C-alpha cells in the first residue's frame, strides 16, 4: 500500500461520518443510536459525526427490517454513497427480520437489499453494543 493510501485510510478511520436511516424500525433502535451519540455514551469521541445526506456519509447505519416501501429507497441511498462504504445493521430486525419475519410487507434483514459489513443484534441494540459494533468495524478497516 502506498503512503498516500495509508494516510487516506488513517484519516477515514479517524473521522467516519454516519448516515442514519430507518428502514421500517419501531424507533427503539433509532433512539438508542441517538443515545449512543449523546453525552452518556458519546460515540462522537471516535470522530464520528451524524450527517444528513448519503453523499457525505462513509457508514450507513440502518435500523429495522426492510419493508417493501422502503426497499427501493434504501438501495438508492446506498448507491448515492461514495466508495468505500460500509453498512451497519442495528437491531435484530435489521439483522434477520426479527419478530417481523414473515410479515407480508417485510422482506427480511438489511442484507436482503444491500451488503452489510457489521451486524449488531439486540431488541433494541443497547448503546454499548452499538459502540462495540462501530469500533469493531473501524478496527477491521485498520487491517486492510
Amino acid at each position, binding site marked *: 500500500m502506498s503512503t498516500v493510501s495509508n494516510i487516506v485510510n488513517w484519516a477515514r478511520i479517524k473521522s467516519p461520518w454516519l448516515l442514519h*436511516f*430507518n*428502514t*421500517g*424500525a*419501531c*424507533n*427503539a*433502535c*433509532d*433512539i*438508542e443510536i*441517538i*443515545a449512543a451519540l*449523546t*453525552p*452518556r455514551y458519546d460515540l462522537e469521541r471516535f470522530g464520528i459525526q451524524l450527517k*444528513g*445526506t*448519503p453523499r457525505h456519509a462513509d457508514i450507513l447505519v440502518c435500523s*429495522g*427490517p426492510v*419493508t417493501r*416501501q*422502503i426497499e427501493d*429507497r434504501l438501495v438508492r*441511498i446506498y448507491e448515492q454513497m461514495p466508495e468505500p462504504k460500509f453498512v451497519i445493521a442495528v437491531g435484530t430486525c435489521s439483522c434477520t427480520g426479527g*419478530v*417481523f419475519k*414473515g*410479515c*407480508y*410487507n*417485510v422482506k427480511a434483514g438489511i442484507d436482503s437489499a444491500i451488503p452489510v459489513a457489521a451486524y449488531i443484534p439486540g*431488541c*433494541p441494540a*443497547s448503546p454499548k453494543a452499538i459502540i462495540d459494533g462501530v469500533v469493531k468495524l473501524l478496527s477491521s478497516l485498520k487491517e486492510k
Partner: protein
Amino acid sequence: MHDSHKFKIPIGPQHPALKEPESFSVALKGEKILGVDIRLGYNHRGIEKACEERTFLQDVYLVERVCGICSHSHSTCFVQAVEEIAGLEIPSRAKYLRTLIAELERVHSHLLWLGVAGHEIGFDTLLMYTWRDREIVMDILAQFTGNRVNYGMNTIGGVRRDIDVSQVKDALKAVDTLQERTKYYIEIATSEVTIIKRLSGVGVLSYEDALRLDAVGPTARASGVKRDVRKDDPYAAYADVSFDVITDNHSDVYGRTVVRLKELLESFKIIRQVLENLPAGPIAIKAPRKIPAGEAISRYEAPRGEDVHFVKSNGGEKPERVKIRAPTLANVQAVKHMLKDRFLADMPIVIAAIDPCFSCTDRSIEISYLDDARKKEVLTWPELHAYSIDWHRKRGIDFSSLNKKLKEGFKTS
C-alpha cells in the same frame, strides 16, 4: 406573482429533518407553504395481520414493537382489552406497577421530545442536556424491567417483574434529580428569549380546529382542550392517584413545549404516589390460554395522546382481529392545517411538535393514483380491475389480445 413561481418540493423519505421515513410533498410559493401532501406507509410492517397469526401472549410482545418509544403504552392497551374480554381482574399491585412504568415512560418520552425539538430549532445544547438527563430515567427503567426500551413488563393478567424496597429508594432519588432538572428546563423555556421568539405563533392550532381535527394528547391540551384518558376514563391505578391535567392556551409550538414540561412534573407526582403507596400482594394472576369469544376496545393515554386498541376473539388461542389507532394518526391531520400559509423553515419544528411516531401510525398502505383524474377514494374490486386495465393500456400495454389468444389456445387444445 406569476403562476410559475409555485413549485413543489419533496421532503423525505430520507431527510435530515425527519427521524423516520415519511414523505411530504410541499407546494410552495416563495417561502410560503400553500399545501402539504403527507404520504405515510414506509414503516408499514403488517403488525395487525401478524397479530392474527400469533397467540394472545405472543401478541403482547409483538404490539410492544409497534413503537419503541411508547412500547409500554401499546402492550398495556392490548392486555387491557384482552383482560376485559376474558373478564380478568388483575391484582392491584400489578395495576400500580403498570402505572409506574407508564409514567416513567412518559418522562423518558417527553425528555426525548424536548431534545429533538431543541435540535430542530438549532439548539443542540438542549438536545445534549436533555438526553444526558434522560439516561437517569433509562437507568431506572432498566433496573425495573431489565431492558432500556421495549420493557416486556406486561403479561395477560398482570406484570412479569416485581420491584423491591431498594429499587423504590433508587427510583425516588432519581425522581428528585429529574425534578430539579425539569424545573431548570421550565425556567429556560419560559425565560429564554430565543426559544420563546422561535416557538411562539408557530404551528397555530386553535381550540375549534383542535376539536374539529380530533387532535389528541399534548397537541390538543396545548390548544386548551382538556382531554386526558387518565382522568376521563381511568385505567390501571390512575383512579387512586391525584394529578392535574395540564392545559395551555397558547395553541402553538410554544404551548406544546410548556404542556409537555409541566406534564413531566405531574408524572413525578404520580410516580412518587405510586412508589409510596405500592400495595402488597401478587403481581399477576393466571390467565387462560384460550380467550373466550368477544370483543373489547381499550383506551390509554400514551405520551403522544390517546391510543386505542380493538381486540376481537373467537374463543381460540389467537385473536381474530386486532386494530391499533395510534395517537400520531389522529394528530397528523392537524399538522397539515398548522403548516398551511406558514414558512417552509417552520416545517421541521411544526412536525416535531406533535411528537410524531410514524412507526405507530403506519397501520395501512395507501394506494394513491398517479394521475390527477381520481374521483373516488374507495374502489370496489371490479372497479379496481377496470382501473388496472386502463392504467396499463395508457402505457401501451394491452393484455386483451393476449387473453383472447390464450382462451383460443385452450379451446383448440
